[in-house]
């Protein structure tokens, strides 16, 4: 099975593990600083949810995801996806794989499955390690009702009902957030995979995907570009915070899923159209 081969290749690359170690390490570093100094960013500033973590460590996975989401996570996804075809081309293995033969469509699908698996694995690794870090450093005291709910203090302070969250609730909502973030990364993955079929340089493909994301981020923040922002890949990236509202606000979450699905379909289609008809001269 070529999918298993692709997963094995990914797993045997030291780079994959270094990226995941960095993804897990950065939130842990932040947690240590916060735990030692007890200086949390005031609500509404700094990484989302971080101020709430001081009183309840089980919220830290969500805070950790908020820390890695804007840059670290998309970079690692862009690197892995950008390497997918271009890396094989530059190492000279693409021609040998295709001459085995591995069908071009099959290879592309296997690469995509490997990317999805990697993203899921990375996000879950961040969630699990930061849950442990959070419990160890901050404990998991039940949320005190008297001081209002964690969510109302931290995330979106003014807009919420203030209903407390049970530990089971937090875990369930974190799972939802993990799924949403993994899906959010698929758009980047698809863009990088498409660029990876255009060039023989993994670096160029990864940087191209990052450039697309940065451009999207700039436009999302620009009021004058409001007309196009609903169609940009980063527009709903933070919608997973809505999982921590009470009740959950589904509107942006649904839109986020839809826009990522659209990007995956469009760019995967483009990648397939280009790769299947391309002369492999690498």
């Amino acid at each position: 099975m070529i999918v298993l081969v692709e997963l094995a290749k990914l797993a045997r690359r030291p780079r994959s593990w270094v990226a995941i170690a960095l993804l897990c390490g950065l939130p842990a570093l932040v947690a240590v600083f916060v735990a030692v100094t007890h200086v949390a960013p005031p609500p509404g500033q700094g990484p989302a949810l971080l101020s709430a973590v001081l009183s309840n460590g089980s919220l830290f996975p969500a805070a950790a995801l908020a820390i890695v989401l804007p840059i670290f996570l998309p970079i690692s996804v862009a690197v892995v996806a950008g390497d997918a075809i271009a890396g094989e081309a530059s190492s000279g293995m693409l021609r040998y794989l295709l001459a085995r033969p591995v069908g071009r469509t099959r290879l592309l699908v296997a690469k995509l499955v490997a990317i999805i698996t990697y993203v899921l694995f990375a996000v879950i690794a961040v969630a699990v390690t930061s849950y442990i870090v959070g419990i160890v450093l901050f404990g998991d005291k039940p949320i005190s009702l008297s001081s209002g709910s964690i969510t109302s203090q931290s995330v979106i302070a003014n807009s919420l009902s203030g209903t407390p969250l049970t530990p089971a609730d937090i875990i369930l909502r974190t799972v939802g957030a993990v799924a949403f973030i993994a899906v959010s990364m698929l758009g980047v993955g698809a863009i990088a995979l498409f660029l990876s079929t255009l060039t023989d340089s993994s670096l160029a493909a990864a940087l191209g995907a990052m450039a697309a994301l940065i451009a999207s981020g700039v436009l999302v923040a620009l009021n004058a570009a409001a007309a196009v922002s609903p169609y940009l890949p980063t527009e709903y990236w933070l919608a997973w915070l809505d999982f921590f509202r009470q009740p959950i606000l589904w509107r942006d979450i649904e839109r986020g899923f839809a826009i990522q699905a659209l990007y995956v379909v469009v760019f995967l289609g483009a990648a397939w159209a280009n790769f299947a008809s391309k002369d492999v001269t690498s």
Partner: protein
Amino acid sequence: MIVTAGLTKRFAQVLAVDHVDLHVREGDRYGFLGPNGSGKTTVVRMLLGLVYPTSGTIEVLGAPVPQRVSAVLPQVGALIEAPSAYGHLSGRANLMLIDASGPRAHGGRGNRKRRVDSALDRVGLGAVDDRAVRKYSLGMRQRLGLAAALLRSPRLLVLDEPTNGLDPQGIREIRDLLGELNAAGTTIFLSSHQLSEIEQLCTRVGVVDRGRLVLQDDLAALSGPTGRVRVRTPDAGRAVALLDGRVVHRDEDRLVVADADVALLNKELVAAGLRVSEIGPERRSLEDLVLSVTGSGSDRFGTRPAPATGGFSAVVADGSAPRDADAGRSRQ
């Protein structure tokens, strides 16, 4: 085995392959020769479905390519340009990954280790350690590439410069290995710009120049006698006078004489009191043949030095004849 008709490939403005009609028969050891940049590799890539032809048709093992390439390639082993491998893995791990890619091989997963071991054995890497391929020498990489091509006991081997980077001992080993495989029924398609490699291994040659197939024939038919005799004599001046017009070329004490009968010519010279140090029929070498039908490779930019004249210089048995064109020109 391999039949192409009017095979043409155009990359943007460059006509890389121009109406090539290859014909490789089952059991052939086919040498595909040409200068650098003449289109050899593009042809090889088209045979394997990596590059799509602009026009023309390809048939490999009886099936059209690239339409039915997935049915053809499982029976083909290929070494395409340089061998490649994942540098951070061992040679064995690389072969395991290659073997696991693509359609299920004969014997399935259970036999994978055995297939890999036997392929490594065949190319002389049977006892290789677990060092990463990154640390392999060029010769080891070449052997590993061959092992990958042999993994599935192919009916057809398509090899591009398979002895590149090997020492003379290694070249001999690989040549013997290819001979054995061929004797066991494997058809070999060997693409190379090294004449000696082709001359020593192949039974049939195709010569490509600037994208066109300029020659395709059995090697035995091509390298026959030319109907001329080469003579080496210290009395060259008198020989020229004696043979009167039959000497077609003179290079100091070496002559080429238009005469098919060596024995008679020798008798004539000796009877006239001339000393003959060497005499024999002139044979066309593959080198002369190829140089006569091809232009300079596309890696040369600028004027070409004048070629050594005649077929003479390259065929002198003792090899002392001027091979490089500059020496030839200084004598003119």
